[in-house]
């Protein structure tokens, strides 16, 4: 469903992706792990066409999105939802307007249908009666949940999560993890999550891929990753300073 083939990307002299290959399976949650600043967000932005690779292919359902024009790319993007790290809610709009935005943009729904769908999506993420609130009035955890409600508004096939639990307390972290799993199951989603929160990785990941120095160095089920003897993975999971991952 999603395949990245030999993807290279540099920013100036800095190589971020260096011949990366990755296959993401349909209907599963794949977690991409790796150190901060290691190119995880860059990888995610390639999947949805926010960044174009210097070379290589990004295939979504067999279509190479690196060769599409804006209009064709927008058609592909309708298959996606994305939850940004800080939720990226439009702060000039209410919560209700935020969730309604993709519906107003891409459907011909009537206002009462939109209202019902917004309420339903907010209920899915465990929020009720917050439609008229502004994003600035919400806590970090609530903002993320509204972000998820907006991401699933159009019932996408794929949802991308950019560090969904970063900056949340342990209780809220667990709540968001549970929500990702529930949403994935009930909407039969393909989820791609980037994270460096070791507990969450094993909680939600059905497949885990480790990004290191611009390449995927290992990809497998949580059991495979947990028992891997690759020194990079061992160091990352143990959180130790000594090892092949250099601290700059």
């Amino acid at each position, binding site marked *: 469903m999603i395949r990245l083939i030999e993807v290279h990307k540099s920013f100036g002299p800095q190589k971020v992706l260096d011949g990366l290959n990755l296959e993401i399976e349909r209907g599963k949650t794949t977690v991409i792990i790796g150190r901060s600043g290691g190119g995880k967000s860059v990888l995610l932005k390639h999947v949805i066409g*926010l960044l174009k690779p210097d070379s290589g292919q990004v295939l979504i359902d067999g279509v190479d999105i690196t060769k599409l024009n804006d209009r064709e790319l927008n058609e592909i*993007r309708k298959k996606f939802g994305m939850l940004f790290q800080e939720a990226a809610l439009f*702060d000039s709009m209410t919560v209700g307007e935020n969730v309604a935005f993709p519906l107003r943009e891409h459907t011909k729904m009537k206002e009462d249908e939109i209202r019902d769908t917004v309420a339903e999506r907010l209920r899915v993420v465990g929020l009720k009666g917050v439609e008229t609130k502004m994003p600035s009035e919400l806590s970090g955890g609530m903002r993320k949940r509204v972000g998820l409600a907006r991401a699933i508004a159009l019932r996408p096939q794929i949802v991308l999560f950019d560090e969904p639990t970063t900056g949340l307390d342990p209780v809220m972290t667990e709540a968001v993890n549970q929500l990702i799993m529930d949403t994935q199951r009930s909407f039969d989603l393909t989820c791609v999550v980037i994270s460096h929160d070791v507990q969450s990785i094993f909680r939600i990941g059905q497949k885990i891929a480790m990004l290191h120095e611009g390449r995927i160095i290992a990809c497998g089920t949580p059991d495979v990753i947990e028992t891997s003897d690759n020194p990079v993975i061992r160091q990352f999971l143990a959180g130790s300073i000594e090892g092949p991952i250099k601290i700059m």
Partner: protein
Amino acid sequence: MKNFITALDLLGKTMMRGMEEAGSIAVLFVSVVAWSVRPPFRLKDIVKQMEFVGVRSIFLVVLTGTFIGMVMALQGYHGFRMFGAESLVGSTVALGMTRELGPVITALMITGRCGSAMAAELGTMRVTEQIDALYVMAANPVKHLIVPRMIAAIIMVPMLTVVSDFVGIVGGYFVGVHLLHINSGVFMANITKLVDLNDIYNGLVKAAVFGLILSLIGCYKGFNTKGGAEGVGRATTESVVLSSVAILVSDYFLTALMF
């Protein structure tokens, strides 16, 4: 010799950067034109921006316009008195306001108040990934964010200029007639005799161009913000400086073309 080459290198780089930026602004402008004629037309967004640029700036424009008219009358009076031509104060104020100061002062005020806000708002949206969110939702940010702001500025800056022209002349009348005791009939007669409708129209065309410049530059700077809070601050400052310079420079060329 080495210093000379370094200086030359710096000059070249600055020139290249300037040319590159001018090119990017031109590309953005073309994209705005293309998106502004493509339905659906988001009237609600345009009206919201018109309220922000226009309605909420009226007090500022009235205040600055009045004082500009007043000081022109004062300065004109002292100058014209030297050769007994005080009666020309009214027409000088009216011509100065309609042709030049009305559009320019209004545009500079709106640059400070709204151009900067456009840069700051779009810049914040950029650094908090709200613009990326628009792309992800297959919504074009130029259509959603820049088109309404530019249309609003192109319509509202001329409207505010009408207000500024009017209060400037009223301010000039107050100073000329009530404080400096110029005959009110002479003051008004000279205005109607020497000010042509074309002076007003051309001033308004200028104002529309200034509205385009300040909104285009404000949106461009905000849209291309890099970095966090510091980047937003830099974008805001640069938008005000660049817009003000562009308004004053284009004013000269527009005047040379029109009058």
